[in-house]
């Protein structure tokens, strides 16, 4: 009985007892959820447009962030560094298209997946060669102050950087959604995602579209990298954290942009809540590393297409 009480009742009693703690945990969870969302978004974009599961997306985040802080450490102005990094990511997209995708066109998806693993390891090594393996802090002028908010039930502590990250992410997602639905290129991207053969027949050059998609994914990776870097410093561990995007994708569906966003938020908030209200008191903590994967597995049993996904994926 005792154990049931601890699992089913006590956590909720705590939540009600200390609403300000609950809110803080939630905010913390949601802000890291936003990061997961951004990484997942990169996966979804590429998967939708080309049917490729890009294992390297996590490394993209790291690689983009590395370039960005590397340039800044060389004394480049943050805005200029940002622009140059976008250029690098676009060049990377071109290179991936020319050197990897085109030669492998019409191959099995598994081959392409293996190729992206190759890209991942190459970039990891290449990044280290270029910029070294140290943890680098990101200082882009994102204000990092602790804010105290007085709410009706008590005071809560909020990191301004977290808020900032949330706003940027929301902005980015909105821009992407508008881009996809209201511009000709967005329409072309959706067309390619929908039916390759038909897209070819109306004269959409698939390769150009792929370059654009990979570049956009690179851009999203950069945004995620900067924000994550600002929080934790740019370090190689970033690429493993980025793999949290996997359970997010399973939750949200591999082909759904809203799914990636909502999935990320759920995973972020869920793992923090679980850690603080169940994990620490019952299991001694450290549940954050595996909680998301368990949730994803449960999801696979009951709703394999994810919350927003269209049917089950056949390509990977």
């Amino acid at each position, binding site marked *: 009985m005792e154990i049931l009480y601890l699992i089913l009742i006590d956590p909720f009693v705590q939540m009600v007892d200390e609403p300000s703690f609950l809110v803080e945990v939630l905010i913390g969870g949601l802000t890291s959820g936003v990061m997961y969302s951004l990484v997942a978004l990169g996966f979804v974009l590429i998967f939708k447009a080309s049917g490729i599961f890009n294992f390297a997306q996590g490394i993209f985040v790291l690689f983009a962030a590395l370039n960005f802080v590397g340039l800044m450490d060389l004394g480049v102005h943050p805005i200029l560094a940002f622009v140059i990094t976008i250029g690098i990511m676009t060049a990377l997209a071109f290179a991936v298209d020319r050197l990897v995708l085109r030669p492998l066109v019409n191959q099995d998806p598994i081959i392409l997946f293996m190729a992206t693993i190759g890209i991942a390891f190459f970039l990891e090594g290449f990044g280290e060669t270029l910029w070294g393996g140290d943890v680098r802090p990101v200082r882009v002028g994102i204000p990092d102050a602790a804010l105290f908010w007085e709410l009706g039930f008590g005071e809560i502590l909020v990191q301004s950087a977290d808020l900032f990250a949330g706003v940027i992410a929301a902005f980015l997602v909105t821009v992407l959604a508008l*881009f996809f639905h209201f*511009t*000709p290129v967005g*329409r072309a991207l959706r067309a390619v995602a*929908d*039916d390759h053969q038909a897209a*070819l*027949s*109306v*004269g959409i050059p698939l390769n150009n579209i792929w370059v654009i998609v990979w570049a956009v994914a690179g851009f999203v990776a950069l945004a995620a990298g900067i924000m994550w870097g600002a929080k934790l410093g740019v370090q190689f561990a970033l690429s493993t954290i980025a793999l949290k995007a996997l359970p997010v994708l399973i939750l949200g569906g591999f082909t759904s942009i809203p799914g990636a966003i909502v999935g990320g938020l759920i995973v972020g908030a869920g793992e923090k809540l679980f850690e603080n209200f169940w994990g620490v008191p019952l299991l001694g903590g450290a549940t954050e590393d595996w909680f998301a994967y368990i949730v994803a597995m449960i999801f696979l049993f009951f709703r394999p297409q994810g919350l927003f996904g269209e049917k089950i994926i056949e390509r990977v």
Partner: protein
Amino acid sequence: MTRSGDILLSVKDISLRFGGVRALTDVSFDIHEGEIFAIIGPNGAGKSSMLNCINGFYHPQEGTITFKGEERRQMRPHEAAAQGISRTFQNIALFKGMTTLENVMTGRMLKMKASFVEQALYMLRGRQEEIAHREKVEEVIDFLEIQAIRKTPVGRLPYGLQKRVELARALAAEPELLLLDEPMAGMNVEEKEDMCRFVLSTNHELGTTIALIEHDMGVVMDLSDRVVVLDYGKKLAEGTPGEVRGNQDVIDAYLGVSHD
């Protein structure tokens, strides 16, 4: 009796193999400007392969295809589209998640002059263009009488209407040569009649040259100015519907088929 003008597309000695399987062997014919040209033959005769060669999905190992006086052997589908070849598919290849309007808009993709980057940023020029293209698309929508389904996602439309939307998308590109892969397949009588009417008025009023594959002999004989008959990847006959109908080889080929 044909309204044919100059040769628009010339297919010469085309052979296509998939591994050891010969899909097409030494096929030659010409399509003239302004005509409706039908490619017929029993199942597996190589009709769709022929169409796929013309619009660049397949690359024949031998032979040449000359379009508008330009000879080419290898061409990508989007290049064929850029030169003025549009097509529809036997099994409908529409963007199911998009509305009718968006689908037809994709047909304008190649006519967009603003550079990809400009479009991506959707700057002033891109926006003006979008409006101009929308006008053209509305004309096509009017032409094919699909106003009522403008904002409907095509995945929700009945089969016959999906076929019409696919034709609309092909027409939006203002093609010089329109390839129709079994435009009447799977339709009921009424839908077939509608489609016939639209194919004819496309040819008459827009002056589009049309090459089509069709199983329904009645439709072929009514619609087309000239017919080429394929069997086992080889050309069996070519001529007006009347000539082809009387050809003994053709009759045999079809009788042979009707038993399986």
